């Protein structure tokens, strides 16, 4: 464990936890402006969270420990990912965990915990949301694994820190067919996994069209605050992963104060920009019919598979 890794391991979770609600605020504000609204301001998600933390905690009748533990599991897995993935520094605090398979599995664990909580409430919408989420995650996880695996082939390691460091040393790789195919596949699955349009609409009020929101309908007060914070953090983590796998510039490679500050600023800038692009894209998209979503995800899986094939044949 290097000094750089420790600095990253401390800074990254703080940055992700504090910045994630602001990122959600930015995406909502961009959308509001494009819709001709004034918008509630970038700080609104933090005001919502502060209020929710002060509200009464309610455990619906008939729910078990699964329902109570799910928000904690969701936040905890996301925090671990925020500690280990190279966002601000190229070294990882826990190098063995910064592995492609471990990170994807941790993120899937959080999703499964919430889906189980949705089932645990015993309501019609909770079960419906859980079944839809499982349909989507079954198609998202393989694509996520294969797309990042395509990048790891030429590095010879599935360690995310090594992948980021090697891209940093050889910038020409970013415009190779492997990278471009993997990037498109990753963008599609990240949109699906974080529940954005055209797969899921985070601003919907209609229970029948919900995916992620339907599973958390029964959460109230501090539990809901945890779920919302974790959703925002997952969005930040996925966008940060996308940014650093394909555009790692600005990331700190030495443990000097200036390099680390540059890493923090570069990460914040990249993720905010990606968030704004996501919000602009959402204004132009309508929600896809649920039965069309597997077609979209199968297409992205094909691209990821092509990326892996290209990484073997074009290397």
């Amino acid at each position, binding site marked *: 464990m290097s000094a750089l890794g420790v600095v990253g391991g401390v800074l990254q979770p703080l940055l992700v936890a504090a910045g994630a609600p602001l990122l959600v605020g930015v995406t909502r504000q961009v959308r509001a402006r494009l819709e001709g609204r*004034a918008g509630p301001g970038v700080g609104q998600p933090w005001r919502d969270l502060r209020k929710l933390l002060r*509200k*009464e905690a309610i455990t619906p009748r008939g729910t078990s420990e699964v329902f109570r533990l799910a928000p904690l599991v969701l936040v905890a897995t996301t925090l671990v990912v925020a500690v280990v993935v190279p966002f601000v520094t190229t070294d990882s605090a826990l190098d063995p965990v910064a592995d492609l398979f471990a990170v994807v599995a941790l993120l899937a664990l959080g999703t499964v915990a919430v889906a189980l909580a949705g089932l645990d409430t015993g309501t019609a919408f909770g079960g419906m949301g859980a079944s839809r989420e499982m349909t989507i995650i079954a198609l998202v996880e393989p694509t996520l694994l294969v797309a990042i695996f395509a990048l790891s082939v030429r590095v010879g390691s599935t360690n995310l820190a090594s992948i980021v460091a090697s891209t940093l040393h050889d910038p020409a790789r970013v415009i190779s067919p492997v990278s471009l195919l993997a990037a498109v596949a990753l963008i599609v699955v990240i949109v699906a996994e974080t529940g954005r349009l055209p797969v899921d609409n985070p601003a919907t009020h209609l229970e029948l069209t919900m995916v992620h929101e339907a599973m958390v309908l029964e*959460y*109230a007060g501090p539990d*809901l605050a945890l779920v919302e914070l974790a959703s925002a953090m997952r969005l930040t983590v996925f966008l940060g992963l996308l940014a650093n796998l394909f555009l790692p510039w600005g990331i700190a490679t030495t443990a000097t104060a200036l390099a680390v500050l540059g890493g923090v600023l570069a990460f914040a800038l990249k993720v905010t920009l990606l968030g704004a692009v996501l919000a602009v894209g959402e204004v132009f998209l309508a929600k896809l019919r649920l039965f069309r979503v597997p077609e979209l995800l199968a297409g992205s899986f094909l691209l990821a598979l092509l990326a892996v094939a290209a990484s073997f044949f074009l290397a």
Partner: protein
Amino acid sequence: MLRLWRKIRRAGRVAEPAPPPPADEQPAVAAGLGGSVQFRHLDAGSCNGCEVEIASAFGPVYDAERYGARLVASPRHADALLVTGPVTRNMAEPLRRTYEAVPAPKLVVAVGDCARDCGVFAGAYGVAGAVRDVVPVDLEITGCPPRPEAIVEAVRVLTGR
């Protein structure tokens, strides 16, 4: 897509400039919410006139969301109930249950004349009473239906922004 982009450019900002903040005092319960109030809308037997006005109050022109309010899909996520219409016999129990499902501190806003005193439906055989006969009401909005400005003003009283 280009046409939509041109339309966005041409329309610009359609939200009207914010009117001066309301003079009414913020209820003590709402002050603790700190400028963020989530509303759950509940139709207790309305003619849908108030629903149209609520939809336009939260639409781009009046943009109630800029004051920190939001409509949510579940009473568990809500801080306040927006109840419209006279409470019909069939909706009295659902209204009570919805009120119980909201985590404390909670508020109830009666929207429109029907919710305040049953309006033109007063004395009808299917009506159980006004909203305040079933659950405690913190704020009432007059009008049949109330103008979106009145709804936005009530929202601002609660969020304090």
